[in-house]
């Protein structure tokens, strides 16, 4: 083989190899990369202990750090209210870049008023403070892990916080027979993305600690796309014509907990709020 021919041949080999590499590295749209484990059914395997790593539970919108969730006017700006003062820096709100697409929330005028009232009355109104079931999508980005248990026929999501659970029906049972805190979840596959349609909510849960709320007309469409062994790209589209002028979307990464002994532990917070909720009715109330 001449020098030129050898060069052409090696170039061809390199091009071919490059093309193959390109084929491997750039997945077809809607198809997860080869590193994503799959079930025997061929679907991406979503099993694992997952957790969001962001500040959305404080405020889903972009926000600067603030001294506390509950504030009052001080002589030189806002300071924590007396009831959370003792927490110091532990009670401060970490800043966050936000998870809402475009950042603005399209509240109807009255709903925006309610949001602000919620925020001003956070200590008495936020359902998280009373250990109530968190609703969807808030359960996803609370600072607790959750476990997806995904078999060939079933998919269940167990959350550490309050022992909340969602049984995702992979066959549509029809309209939710009754409203609930966690809604009725119906799943389907769009290529390699699990799409969960959630309806049948009550109007009791919030989106975050900043008073962002919804009505019982809430409809959430979630998309779970496992983009690697360790990441699920998560999106939730929110529709609620009683509260918002249009639908809006949040997105974030969910990370797989890497510890070899990663698992859900007990966080039955019901017992932790008994003093708050019922302490005044003790025979001998503690000082408060």
């Amino acid at each position, binding site marked *: 083989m001449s020098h030129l021919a050898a060069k052409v041949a090696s170039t061809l080999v390199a091009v071919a190899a490059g093309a193959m590499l390109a084929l491997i590295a750039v997945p077809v749209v809607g198809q997860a990369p080869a590193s994503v484990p799959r*079930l*025997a059914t061929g679907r991406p395997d979503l*099993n694992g202990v997952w957790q969001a790593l962001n500040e959305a539970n404080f405020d889903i919108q972009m926000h600067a750090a603030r001294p506390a969730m509950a504030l009052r006017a001080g002589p030189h700006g806002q300071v924590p209210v007396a009831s959370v003062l003792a927490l110091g820096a532990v009670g401060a709100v970490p800043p966050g870049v936000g998870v809402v697409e475009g950042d603005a929330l399209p509240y109807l005028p009255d709903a925006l008023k309610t949001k602000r009232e919620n925020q001003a009355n956070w200590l008495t109104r936020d*359902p998280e403070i*009373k*250990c*109530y*079931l968190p609703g969807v999508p808030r359960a996803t980005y609370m600072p607790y892990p959750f*476990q997806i*248990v*995904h*078999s*060939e*026929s*079933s*998919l*269940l999501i*167990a959350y550490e916080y309050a*022992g*909340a*659970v969602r*049984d995702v029906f992979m066959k549509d*049972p029809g309209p939710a*027979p*009754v409203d*609930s*805190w*966690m809604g009725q979840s119906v799943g389907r596959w769009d290529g390699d993305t699990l799409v969960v349609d959630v309806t049948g909510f009550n109007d*009791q849960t919030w989106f975050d600690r900043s008073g962002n709320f919804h009505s019982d007309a809430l409809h959430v469409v979630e998309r779970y796309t496992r983009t690697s062994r360790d990441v699920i790209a998560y999106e939730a589209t929110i529709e609620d014509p009683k509260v918002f002028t249009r639908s809006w979307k949040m997105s974030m990464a969910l990370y797989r907990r890497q510890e070899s*002994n990663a*698992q*859900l*532990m*007990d966080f*039955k917070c*019901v*017992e932790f709020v*008994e003093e708050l*909720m*019922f*302490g005044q*009715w*003790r*025979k*001998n109330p503690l000082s408060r």
Partner: protein
Amino acid sequence: MRRRLLLVTILVGGLALAALSPAPIAGQGQAYSPPRLADGQPDLQGTYDLATLTPLERPNGMNAVLSREEVAKLEGAVAAVVALGARPSSGERAAPPKGGDGSRGAAGNVGGYNSFWLDPGSTFTMVNGEARTSIVVDPSDGRLPPLTPAARQRLGALLARPSAENDPGLDPTPGAYDDPERRPLGERCLLGFGSAAGPPALPNYFYNNLRKIVQTPDRIVILNEMVHDVRVIRMNAQHLPSHIRKWAGDSVGRWEGDTLVVDTTNFNADQIRYVVAVAPGRTLMMVESIGAEEQDRLSGPGKDLHVIERFTRVGEKALLYRFTIEDPGTWERPWTGEFTWPATDQPIYEYACHEANYALENILRGARQRDAEATKR
């Protein structure tokens, strides 16, 4: 003649088929070949209805197994009672008499749930082709082994609840209404009430008897409808260190042949399990927190509770559930029970409890009102 032969063939064939059909047979798991998942393990998944007429303990004077005639008679009698209680009530009926109608239990004494609300079971559990009169199979008399002297003493106050003068629903245990922590775990929405808290998973004889199993190679989940408890069983894993205690214990699993064996320890030690008769022939295993002054999750009387459960698919629509309880702080020796879990198409609903628990507040407020009135007198 030919026709007659054909009929006989069909009948005999039918009988043979019936014999082959997967009746739940204990200890004969090999006879039935369960569907399997990709990892080769039997598929235990499904929703199961644990409701059964078979009580935990065998009622006095009953044989271990009922005859077909006895089953028909007893199940028929229960169905008649249920039908009676399910009749629509009249809007014009009078209020219950002052002081109540004499009934006891969850409805208080002013009348309450009719059959529509309840799901106490309608059939006896069939194991090994036998209609059983107790879930307990060891001891063989179908009764629990004796309590240890310490447990007898501890449970004395709980088990001997004399009715108070004017209010049969009132718990006379000293301090029973002093603090939320003194109230039953079900009332606090921490665990299911009656027998619904587990493990072991027992029929509740009341309602909310559903369990759902979702199975993967390294995690098996049992969802309990009542109080939305999810038990995540870690397969082939070690138990948590002994200072980590959980309300439903720490469950690890392994396969023994085609049987899933789940081992649960690390229960909150301030819980106690005890068995109480709530009606003739109806015993419940209650899980309760013990008195506030004794509460200790590490060294309480439940510290050594150990539950071993065995799940075997014995038919297209049935699991055999067998459990052994070792609790040297409570019973003089281990005991074992078994019953069949029939699959069901019933949906599991959200059981949000704490979120609307105005009852606990009102119970405590009522007690303070009572205290105030007693002081005035």
